[in-house]
């Protein structure tokens, strides 16, 4: 369980974690018996408790190992309930962990936190929500990834076969901006009460930002999203795409003022995210030569409106939002898990 040596100084201890391959490439906070106990207490857990399992990998995630990784990531003890819920989500059969975790596509596991705990812990939902500078965002996402590496056997080159990976694989956690939301937030949409707290895990390709400063109504703005979502290089063009859309301040304001519902937005995107069969064939995304009729044969990339997740986060100023293309609805589903709060 632990290795003792009396003469480690702080620097040597950090190096020892590197040498054993236990880090994500950044220095970790070396755990102590005290910090592990405090971390477990933060979620009211005993070390022997089971958080989840990945049966096809023969992996069981214990509370003790989760707490060790959370200390290493730099979490405060009161962050642990969020990490626990995120890992439970990854272990849910609907998430189908083994595919998105090991695929050459190299997905980031995004944790979206909703409810009062997000505000209590200071999880950033505003300016630079995807960027650096907020301990809760940085360390909760990092704890999830370290747990994936160290406990769930998801090591680069072994059961993580990412061709390129993406920077979100270090850490990716943010909360929804529920205060200035045009609609009900994600956890309420998924059947939870506003006063409950949840984390939603979602396997994401690299995000790309969508810019539009001139749109004064939903249609032109959403055409930009539709164009971005059905680019020819996107992985799932055969109708089972899924995507997470993160609307930031100016764009969510525009949609609020328009009176469009979340379902209206989804329906518009499903209708407009399409390419002609000729386009797909010219780009070798479908086999065969272009034939008569292919120029007017439209292929939609989303099967259903619910394959488009919509959340709100980001600063109030700026004409930016983001698309986070997902892994395809037949490969994995996002999972929302209740966070146990005292």
């Amino acid at each position, binding site marked *: *369980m632990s290795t003792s*040596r009396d003469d480690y100084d702080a620097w040597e*201890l950090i190096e020892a974690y590197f040498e054993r391959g236990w880090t994500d490439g950044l220095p970790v906070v070396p755990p102590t018996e005290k910090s592990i106990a405090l971390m477990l207490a933060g979620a009211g857990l005993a070390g022997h408790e089971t958080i989840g399992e990945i049966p096809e990998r023969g*992996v*069981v995630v214990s509370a003790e190992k989760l707490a060790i990784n959370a200390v290493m990531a730099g979490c405060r003890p009161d962050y642990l309930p969020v990490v626990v819920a995120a890992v439970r989500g990854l272990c849910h059969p609907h998430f189908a962990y083994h595919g998105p975790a090991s695929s050459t596509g190299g997905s980031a596991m995004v944790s979206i936190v909703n409810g009062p705990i997000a505000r209590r812990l200071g999880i950033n939902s505003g300016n630079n929500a995807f960027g650096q500078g907020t301990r809760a965002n940085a360390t909760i996402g990092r704890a999830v990834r370290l747990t994936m590496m160290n406990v769930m056997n998801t090591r680069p080159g072994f059961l993580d076969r990412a061709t390129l990976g993406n920077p979100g694989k270090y850490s990716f956690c943010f909360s929804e901006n529920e205060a200035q939301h045009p609609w009900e937030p994600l956890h309420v949409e998924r059947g939870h009460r506003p006063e409950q707290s949840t984390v939603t895990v979602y396997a994401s390709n690299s995000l790309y930002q969508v810019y539009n400063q001139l749109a004064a109504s939903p249609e032109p703005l959403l055409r930009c999203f539709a164009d971005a979502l059905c680019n020819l290089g996107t992985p799932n063009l055969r109708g089972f795409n899924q995507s997470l859309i993160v609307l930031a301040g100016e764009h969510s304001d525009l949609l609020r003022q328009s009176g469009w519902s979340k379902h209206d937005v989804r329906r518009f995107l499903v209708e407009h995210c399409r390419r002609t069969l000729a386009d797909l064939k010219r780009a070798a995304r479908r086999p065969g030569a272009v034939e008569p009729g292919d120029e007017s044969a439209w292929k939609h990339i989303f099967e259903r409106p619910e394959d488009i997740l919509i959340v709100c986060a980001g600063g109030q100023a700026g004409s930016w939002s983001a698309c986070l293309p997902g892994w395809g609805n*037949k490969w994995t589903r996002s999972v929302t898990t209740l966070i146990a709060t005292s």
Partner: protein
Amino acid sequence: MKLFDPTTTPRERSVVLAPRPRDLRGLRLGLVENTKFNSDVILNKLCERLVDRYGVTPGRMIRKRSPSHAVTEEAADELRRISDFIVSGVGD
């Protein structure tokens, strides 16, 4: 000061391999298609070759929900019932 091991060793499980047939002639072939692009094309081609070269009897192709998902119990039961041996697994 101590090092605390953050890793977990996966549980080992023993797997009994099915006995390998000495001769494929007349045996019923089952195929498990994992939905990877062109995996059905490759498996069908492989089936043709096995029929031509070894005289196997082509059987059903079972399609998984995705490469991430296991074969369902129902599909596994059917494969057991209608196949003598199975070809599964197409990667990138």
